[in-house]
């Protein structure tokens, strides 16, 4: 049938379409988009705004035991900053620096309407951490047991290459230590002392930050990430860092 002929046909509208047909059509659409976009289904927007893109997340293997990770239920965050306060207090973070912070922006939801959105950020404890690769003296390293990206302050020469290499702005120079400082999931201050949560996760009144062991099928993080209908994404997947901080809504 030619396009001219098609145009003459009456539009049946979607109301009469059986849901099976609709699903089939959507599946085709997704498959075609997936093929042409090389799998990056939502590459219509810049990668860091992509939500629902599962590229960068490989849910098959967990190289560490425990494999610590954090899930951030982004839409629950109200920017109360209790996480930041707890982090500063627990880890003795100076006022000129931070290990975790909350970003915000206004997104348009109508012609004259905007909605404020918050996003907590911290070290992503990547499986392929660019900071660890570039450090000349192995002052920053991936802990072999937990996968936490840690600092050995005395080895840090202060070249700041890890700061340039980090896709997540997770590092700052600590003047007192004369070394780079960063989030270590409160390993020295809490986890190694038997606590189960990081200070920020424990302090969050809205249960935004879910912390736990991704290799444990009984953990909250495992269950949340594996919910079949849940959309989970990571920040800046295009860098290939394979982060362990996941974002979701609800």
């Amino acid at each position: 049938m030619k396009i001219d002929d098609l145009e003459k046909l009456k539009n049946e509208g979607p109301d009469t379409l059986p849901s099976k047909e609709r699903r089939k059509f959507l599946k085709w659409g997704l498959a075609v988009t997936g093929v042409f976009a090389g799998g990056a289904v939502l590459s219509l927007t810049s990668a860091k705004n992509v939500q629902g893109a599962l590229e960068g997340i490989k849910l098959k293997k967990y190289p560490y035991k425990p494999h610590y990770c954090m899930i951030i239920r982004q839409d629950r965050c109200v920017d109360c900053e209790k996480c930041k306060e707890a982090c500063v207090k627990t880890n003795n973070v100076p006022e000129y620096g931070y290990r975790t912070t909350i970003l915000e922006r206004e997104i348009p939801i109508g012609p004259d309407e905007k909605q404020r959105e918050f996003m907590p950020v911290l070290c992503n404890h990547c499986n392929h951490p660019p900071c660890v690769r570039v450090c000349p003296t192995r002052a920053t390293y991936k802990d072999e047991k937990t996968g936490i990206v840690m600092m050995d302050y005395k080895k840090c020469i202060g070249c700041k290459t890890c700061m340039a290499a980090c896709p997540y702005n997770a590092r700052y120079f600590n003047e007192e230590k004369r070394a780079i400082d960063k989030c270590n999931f409160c390993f020295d201050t809490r986890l190694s002392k038997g606590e189960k949560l990081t200070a920020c996760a424990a302090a969050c009144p809205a249960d935004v930050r879910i912390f736990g062991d991704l290799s444990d099928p009984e953990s909250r993080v495992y269950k949340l990430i594996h919910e079949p209908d849940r959309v989970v994404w990571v920040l800046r997947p295009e860098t290939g860092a394979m982060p362990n901080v996941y974002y979701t809504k609800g």
Partner: protein
Amino acid sequence: MSNNLSTGTLSEPRVATPTVNTATAFAILFTVVGLGVGVYAMIAGHHHVYACTREVPWGILISTYAFFAITSTGLCLLAAIGHLFGGTPLMHLGNRAVYLSIATILAAFSVIGLELESPWRMLIYNVISPNLTSNIWWMGTLYGMAVGAMFIEFFAIVTRQWNLALAVGIMGALAEVGANTNLGAVFATLSARPFWYGAQLPVFFLCSSFASGAAAIILFTHLAYKMRGTDFDERTFRGLQSAGKVLALTLFLLVVATAWRFIVIFTGNNEMAMIAANHLLKGKMATNFWLFEVAIGMVFPLLLLIGTQMKNVPAMSIAGAMTLVGGFIQRYDLVVAGQQVPVYYGWDDLPSYLGYIPSIGELLVVMGGIGVCLTLFLIGERVFGKVFKPAEHH
């Protein structure tokens, strides 16, 4: 080895004119003040003196280090090519090139030593805790080896042990190539910084090193003859012409590489890289880019060299000076522009241009680095002046 070595066979006392003495005094003053400020910054804390931030951790000290290091590589390679292939007129400039390569790498080390927050830890942990995947580690180690090799090479030249000089010179040159391309890779392998990321920068740095090295040997040889008040002999002139050809060719290649570098960025879909590129093309850094990096750094010297057919030494010298000025700004543009787009661009009303203006303290340390280079050049002409005469060996 010659047994007749004495300062008389090496030094060039006639260089010590009042003008040169004054220039040397100023160069030493620049060095002492500039490096003194850097030492103060190390004690007081960099944040009190330097303008770098969490978002823009690298500034003009990194770019100045890169500038001197790249120039050092070029000088070392030109010397090695001259000495290795004895037939090329470049060999007549080789001894001075080796010395200047040492001078520029020491200037680079001075600046980077004052840029690192805790450099003394590097001396320990680079050795006992090396990270072989780190480009910084390789760069530091290979530049260290290269400078060691060049010290031996220069000693061998002074003591007329030509075979040793040649062998060590080749080793030094290979180490310099490794160090230089690793310096490019420091930037090129950071996927978090799309403006830098990609395969081009290591070879771009190598090409830049030949341009800067050729520019430096032309300019400093010209200055050296001015200081002596003598005309060029035939061999030196042919050496300068040869360096001029290297300069013209590499400038041409850099123009082509720069054009494609930017075109490729705009054919991709990486927004961060495009925003960074636009800072240079039409943003706050446009004067730096178009006037200094492109016009003064590449196009004018190239036209000057082609127009004068490499027959006019002052013209070649001006082209060399312009190349060095443009090269200095190019390293700055590359370092700064690559960090201008926030990694979380689009959030927190973050600006698309983070901004960085070098502090007075940083500029003084840069002056210190230039002071080191000039001081070593001026003193070198006096102490080793005769060593730099056109080669008689090979």
